[in-house]
């Protein structure tokens, strides 16, 4: 036994003498860190890296079957889902792994920001981290395209439309993006190359640099209120801290990283197993227009923002806002490279995180139910509540039919069902007078098209009479405040 072991050591020595990698790896693993940094708050970076590994492995496995051809991609995904042993699970792990990776990268970023870890001398580590976030999002978007279904097709349409807004070279950019004049085979091939070769290559390289710099500069110490970062003294103070109460990363802190990574992998596996793979939704056939395209979860907030921009502001916003946003993220450590690290003494930082989180959360929530979109089948699917038709005149009931038939319900709800684009009509007559309703219906305005060309006088009369019965729970009808003045008979 010991002879075998002796032999093993000899082989190891033979390789190590030539390769010389084991020593630096062991040294890196055992590099000293501040005892305070062996915390559960410091596990997100390594978890993101483990997830990246999972994505690489599952990605390669999926590439064994996936066919990056516009004509076949959708079929090969169905084949993966239904005919390849465990193909559905691999797709699910890759899809859920992607969602988890974005979430973990964001949490990692927030933690680094709140702990002031981006400050001197780790500015460049932060900047590369920002690039890693963008690359992760790039992987998510290109991955969504490779799931070549309706959402992917129209998502590309949105991408092309946004690109077309670039002044002067918009059309050229669109054709470069699509690889041709329309979304087709060349487009999918381009995004396949991006998703499988280009972005992962840059991503892995950047992760390597990112980790190398963490090792070189040392992990951020646990911030203490009042302990300020100064470029002149920080490195000396850090080395003093390491000397005084440094502990080896492995094993003293690494067990937390390992345990958390295991928990995250288990969570990905559980989500994949119980919730299954994402799509594909309908085939990428642009002649099928009965579709409500929607991006993946990570991009829902952008989709929502695009619904609220005024038309004149949209192009400048789309072209300028990302530059400012990314520029601000990149320049943050240059502007705020020194000073207080602890969150309790950085109220603006905490407030910023809170504001950004709430904003992203609200827009994402809106993106899940898209209140700005008409519900295309509400006019045939959602009935007028029976209570609204009881004890009504034939004219008023006829108006209810007009309301349904003219698709008003696609944008307006009655009794809680119907579109949310326009206001609910349940108590419309308590807010608007007859004249106002007629004007609004015929001329439109606000966000409403005019229906003057789509309604004949009889239909308009019936519709308005029906709308005048809608006064919620017996609210008083709206009155024109000037009515009694204009109708008043002058005295004497």
């Amino acid at each position: 036994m010991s002879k075998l072991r002796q032999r093993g050591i000899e082989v190891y020595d033979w390789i190590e003498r030539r390769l010389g990698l084991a020593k630096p790896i062991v040294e890196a693993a055992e590099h000293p860190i501040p005892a305070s940094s062996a915390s559960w708050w410091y596990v997100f970076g390594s978890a993101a890296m483990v997830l990246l590994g999972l994505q690489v492995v599952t990605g390669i496995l999926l590439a064994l079957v996936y066919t990056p051809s516009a004509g076949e991609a959708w079929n090969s995904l169905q084949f993966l889902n239904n005919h390849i042993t465990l193909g559905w699970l691999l797709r699910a792990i890759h899809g859920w792994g992607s969602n988890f990776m974005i979430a973990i990268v964001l949490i990692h970023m927030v933690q680094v920001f709140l702990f002031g870890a981006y400050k001197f001398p780790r500015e460049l580590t932060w900047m590369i981290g920002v690039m890693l976030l963008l690359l992760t999002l790039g992987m998510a978007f290109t991955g969504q395209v490779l799931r070549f279904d309706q959402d992917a097709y129209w998502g590309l349409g949105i991408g092309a439309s946004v690109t077309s807004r670039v002044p002067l070279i918009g059309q050229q950019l669109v054709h470069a993006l699509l690889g041709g004049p329309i979304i087709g085979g060349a487009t999918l091939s381009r995004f396949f190359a991006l998703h499988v070769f280009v972005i992962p290559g840059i991503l892995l390289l950047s992760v390597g640099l990112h980790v190398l710099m963490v090792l070189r500069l040392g992990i951020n110490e646990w911030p203490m209120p009042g302990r300020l970062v100064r470029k002149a003294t920080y490195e000396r103070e850090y080395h003093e801290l390491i000397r005084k109460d440094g502990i080896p990363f492995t094993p003293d802190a690494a067990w937390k990283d390992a345990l958390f990574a295991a928990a995250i992998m288990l969570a990905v596996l559980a989500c994949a197993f119980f919730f299954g793979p994402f799509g594909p939704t309908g085939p990428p056939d642009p002649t099928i227009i009965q579709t409500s395209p929607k991006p993946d979860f990570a991009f829902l907030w952008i989709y929502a923002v695009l619904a609220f921009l005024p038309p004149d502001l949209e192009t400048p916003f789309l072209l300028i806002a990302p530059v400012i946003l990314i520029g601000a993220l990149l320049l943050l450590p240059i502007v705020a490279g020194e000073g207080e690290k602890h969150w309790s003494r950085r109220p603006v930082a905490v407030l910023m995180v809170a504001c950004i989180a709430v904003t992203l959360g609200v827009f994402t929530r809106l993106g899940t139910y898209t209140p700005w979109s008409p519900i295309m089948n509400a006019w045939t699917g959602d009935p007028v509540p029976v209570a609204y038709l009881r004890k009504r005149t034939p004219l008023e009931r006829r108006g209810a039919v007009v309301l349904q038939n003219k698709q008003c319900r696609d944008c307006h709800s009655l009794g809680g069902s119907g579109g949310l684009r326009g206001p609910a009509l349940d108590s419309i007559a308590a807010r608007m007078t007859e004249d106002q309703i007629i004007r609004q219906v015929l001329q439109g305005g606000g966000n409403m098209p005019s229906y003057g060309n789509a309604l004949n006088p009889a239909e308009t009369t019936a519709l308005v009479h029906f709308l005048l019965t809608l006064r919620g729970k017996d609210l008083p009808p709206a009155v024109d405040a000037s009515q009694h003045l204009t109708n008043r008979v002058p005295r004497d």
Partner: protein
Amino acid sequence: MNTSSEENLQPTTPAPAAKSRRTFLFKLSLLVNAAVGALVGVPFLGYLLGPALEKGSRYNSWISLGALTQFPEGETRLVDYRNPVTTPWDGETGNVACWVRRISGRQFQVFAINCAHLGCPVRWFAQSKLFLCPCHGGAYYADGSRASGPPPRGLFEYKHKISGGQLMISAGQMPTLATEACLKKPLIQLDPAPKRPSCQS
């Protein structure tokens, strides 16, 4: 041993003559490499940007949407066509849909399916005479002019003509704001459509 060899690599000791010659050759080799690199890069860039360098209008050609009799007067219908520029592996993505509105007789309007906002497919509602977009709620009137919502302009229109009893359109590329598909002036809703033959050739 190791440190001494590293020191030898430091460019502090070599003789000035040897240094200047080797340095010159090294710089020359860099220059040659840069030149060859640039040369190699030309086909790379040309290949990558090929689709962008193609003049946009070259993709377009006249194709038939079918006989005039297929389009009842006063109606707007969804029509599919195969894009004139396709590859066999484009599959169903090579098919394109468009809205054909026959105003009367030989007066037509042919609208792209793509919303002018972000390219989503708009749907025609004959009862309310509106095109509605499922993505962000853009709405257009029957003549393609903007009715409400985020679109910055009316629907994109194809150039069309009638030849041999067939309705022909000039198609080939995805219409976007950069292609400025047939928009001469801001559309005014009350303008009767026949007065704007901007897309009729």
